[in-house]
């Protein structure tokens, strides 16, 4: 359904750039994703500001070295002019736009003013240095945020764009936004349900792992609701649309994530407001110093001792680049490093909150466990062979678990004839002379003699009460039960041990039975666990603990959503997690990589440390530079070094967070 056909572009090329148009708009008309450009040109555009900044830095260095040779000075001047063109013009454009279009006088304006003013007092190199460093820090920031954006774009691709609607008995392809309420939509095996609706015809198992976190497919028959984003496994469903595209389940997930992306930490928001006031104050003081100082002191306007020179040195050193950069670049680097690991945080403020958490609470199914079924015990090799032979070509997780077990035990398959899939129920076929069925218990019971069916049902209920998932095989009027259970995710035990070392306590909160919770808790090393909890019980427990001390809750299902929202930090599994849970959570583990939780907590601690270090560096650089500048004891070149040194240090310090 997602395979698109070309209209005007050859198929081969069209497939290569299937998502180019969508990516281009989702990245905010980013040139490096422009559909108009050739692939080579798109590669050239990637991180272009960073490449240009590095080029300008090298050119400036060359110009500086060349300037020591008097006969080569004209060449140095040409190179210097090129540096101003490369990094100065973009800064100038931004500043003029800020002042004229946005009526904003901010830190960028302050820096550009200082850099260009430097030319008029014969300090072109210092001005160029300022511009180069400013461009470098801006380009690094852009690169980091683009990477974070790219990680989220993958989530947007969950949204189906087209639906096959049934109109006057004919099947027609329609864009999802053109599909009206009440329209009948056909969804075939392997396709994704494009819009929320109610099944009016057909039956099938549907996989809703992206929506509910439940890895085991659920049977959907006439009258059942199906959400958009669910994948139809076998057969086909005719669905009557109940929600429009902008209101569908998948669209809501995407909207929630997009909204969350724009969240800023409190400290960062405060700095944005502070930046404007500060820039205006510094520009005013600089003007007063430049124009007024000769009236009070025995000073000229021009020259190295002059008031203009001092005011420029003050303007440069007092610019709070390092201070402004100190917090966001640290958060951005940490967010970028996390995104690279497949962890999306809804803003830098989450790192602060993670540092406040002393307890980590876990849900069980789908969170600590894989959500993948494994067959626990087998009646006999012969029965397993029958079951596996029937399920050999099915895609249901139960079928996969049976076939996997059969292959692991090296049991040969037997011949099955007249194989038929009963959508939503299971598979039937002829083994030898006997008809056999494997699949749903309720259907199996109808195939058994009454007395045996009663006994069989009781046996099944007993297994189910232990938290096991059941499938039934019926052959020659006899029923056989297959019990499946979920396994712990790999790396969970190590992660919990590592979290303990970081000073965190943990507990498991589950709605499952005590009998099924206990073995898992023991296996992964959790002493403290509570089972048989309803969503409201979980919420009560989480609320109490969150009020007392910080708590991070890790979950996946809709039933975890209230607890995730109430916890100090809600962490949700990205792949198996439900849409509601993802909306409520602060952190999304895109690849269900729960084994990286200890890494995330360690990264949060390191981020806090680096933010504090950065603030100290920035304040020292401003105070140490601006006061001597006013007294005229700081030459312009040194003012630039002090100021930019602080900015570069802050940037480099923050970039340490990008490391794994």
């Amino acid at each position: 359904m997602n395979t698109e056909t070309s209209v005007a572009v050859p198929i081969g090329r069209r497939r290569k750039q299937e998502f180019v148009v969508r990516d281009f708009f989702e990245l905010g008309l980013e040139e490096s994703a422009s559909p108009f450009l050739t692939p080579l040109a798109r590669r050239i555009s990637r991180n272009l500001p960073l490449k240009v900044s590095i080029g300008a830095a090298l050119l400036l260095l060359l110009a500086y070295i060349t300037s020591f040779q008097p006969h080569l000075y004209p060449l140095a001047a040409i190179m210097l002019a090129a540096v101003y063109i490369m990094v100065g013009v973009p800064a100038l454009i931004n500043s003029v736009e800020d002042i004229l279009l946005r009526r904003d006088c901010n830190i960028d304006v302050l820096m550009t003013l200082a850099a260009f003013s430097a030319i008029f007092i014969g300090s072109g190199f210092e001005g160029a240095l300022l511009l180069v460093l400013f461009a470098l820090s801006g380009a690094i920031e852009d690169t980091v945020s683009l990477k974070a954006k790219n990680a989220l774009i993958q989530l947007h691709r969950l949204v189906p764009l087209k639906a096959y609607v049934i109109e006057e008995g004919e099947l027609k392809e329609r864009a999802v936004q053109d599909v009206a309420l009440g329209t009948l939509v056909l969804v075939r095996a392997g396709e994704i349900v494009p819009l929320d609706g109610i099944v009016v015809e057909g039956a099938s198992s549907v996989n809703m792992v992206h929506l509910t976190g439940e890895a085991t497919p659920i049977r959907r028959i006439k009258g059942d609701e199906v959400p958009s984003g669910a994948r139809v496994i076998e057969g086909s469903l005719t669905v009557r649309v109940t929600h429009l595209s902008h209101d569908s389940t998948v669209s809501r997930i995407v909207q929630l994530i997009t909204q969350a992306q724009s969240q800023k930490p409190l400290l960062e928001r405060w700095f944005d407001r502070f930046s404007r006031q500060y820039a205006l104050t510094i520009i005013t003081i600089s003007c007063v110093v430049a124009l007024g100082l000769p009236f009070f002191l025995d000073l000229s306007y021009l020259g190295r001792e002059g008031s203009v020179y001092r005011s420029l040195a003050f303007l440069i050193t007092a610019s709070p680049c390092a201070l402004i950069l100190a917090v966001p670049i640290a958060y951005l680097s940490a967010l970028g490093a996390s995104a690279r690991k497949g962890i999306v945080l809804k803003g830098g403020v989450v790192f602060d909150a993670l540092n406040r958490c002393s307890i980590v609470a876990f849900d069980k199914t789908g969170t600590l466990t894989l959500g993948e079924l494994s067959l626990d015990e087998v009646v006999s090799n012969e029965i397993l062979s029958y079951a596996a032979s029937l399920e050999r070509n099915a895609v249901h997780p139960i079928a996969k678990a049976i076939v996997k077990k059969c292959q692991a035990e090296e049991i040969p398959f037997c011949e099955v004839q007249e194989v038929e899939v009963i959508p939503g129920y299971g598979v039937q076929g002829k083994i030898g002379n006997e008809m056999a069925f494997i699949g749903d218990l309720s259907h199996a019971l109808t195939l058994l003699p009454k007395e045996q069916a009663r006994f069989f049902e009781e046996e099944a209920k007993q297994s189910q009460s232990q938290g096991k998932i059941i499938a039934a095989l019926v052959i020659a009027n006899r029923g056989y039960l297959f019990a499946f259970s979920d396994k712990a995710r790999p790396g969970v035990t190590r992660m919990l041990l590592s979290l303990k070392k970081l000073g965190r306590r943990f507990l498991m909160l589950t709605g499952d039975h005590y009998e099924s919770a206990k073995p898992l808790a023991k296996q992964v090393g959790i002493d403290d666990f509570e089972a048989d909890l309803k969503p409201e019980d979980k919420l009560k427990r989480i609320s109490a603990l969150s009020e007392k001390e910080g708590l991070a809750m890790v979950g996946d299902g809709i039933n975890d959503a209230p607890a995730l929202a109430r916890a100090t930090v809600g962490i949700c599994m990205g792949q198996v997690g439900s849409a509601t849970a993802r909306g409520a959570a602060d952190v999304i583990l895109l690849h269900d990589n729960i084994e990286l939780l200890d890494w995330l907590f360690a990264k949060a601690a390191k981020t806090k440390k680096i933010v504090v270090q950065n603030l100290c560096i920035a304040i020292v650089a401003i105070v140490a530079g601006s006061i001597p500048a006013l007294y005229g004891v700081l030459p312009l070149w040194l003012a630039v070094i002090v100021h930019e040194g602080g900015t570069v240090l802050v940037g480099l310090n923050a970039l340490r967070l990008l490391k794994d």
Partner: protein
Amino acid sequence: MSDHFKGKEAIQHIVEVQANGVVSSSEIHGAETPGFLFALTDAARETTAALVLLFVLCNFFEFLPDQLFMLLFSFSAGWACWKFGRASWLATSRLERLHRVMDEERHEIEYNRAQEKEELKALYRAKGFQGKLLDDVVDVLMADGDRALRVMLEEELGFRLDENEHPLLQGLGAFLGVVAASGLLLLAYNTASQVALVVTAVCLFAISCYVTAKREHNKSIPAIVWNLAIALFASVVAYFCMKFIASE
């Protein structure tokens, strides 16, 4: 069944062929021809014209050969930077315009679907589609936002996707064009004679016009002769204007 449709539906095939036709015809009727090679040949031609004009005018002053060489060299250096920047800027500006139009078109497709559908219908009706076939084509195109956008851009607006070179690459083309033309002309002037300079200029004109004409599938001989004639006319006008002013 022949391989005429290349594995596609007949409707898709027709749409593809018609789209290519519209794109091709829009090129002939004055669409911009951006690209490294065009920027190079165009810059080479303009540089040759500018240097020849300068050379003609400088003959009225009593420059020593070395002085004239320095003047032409310095002019070429500045001119190369101008052409690089100008070509890059024109390409950037063109790309910005394309992006804006694309964004507007996407907005139309997303929010004014009924009108866009009508536009598509009109477009395909003009191509001979009618009745149910017309409805089917439009429905298929409108079912996918990306596809509808591509068709509108390529068919309605005559744009070409995946074809534009990077603005900096176009700028580089122009820069190399200036360097090549001025380098050859100055070399000819410095090592041979004024006649060599004129011969080199004629050759540069001829080559650059030939390459451009070939690339645009135009006739090469009229292109070469016309361009040479215009350059000669410009030189004659400059020469006699100067002569007239000097005599007054």
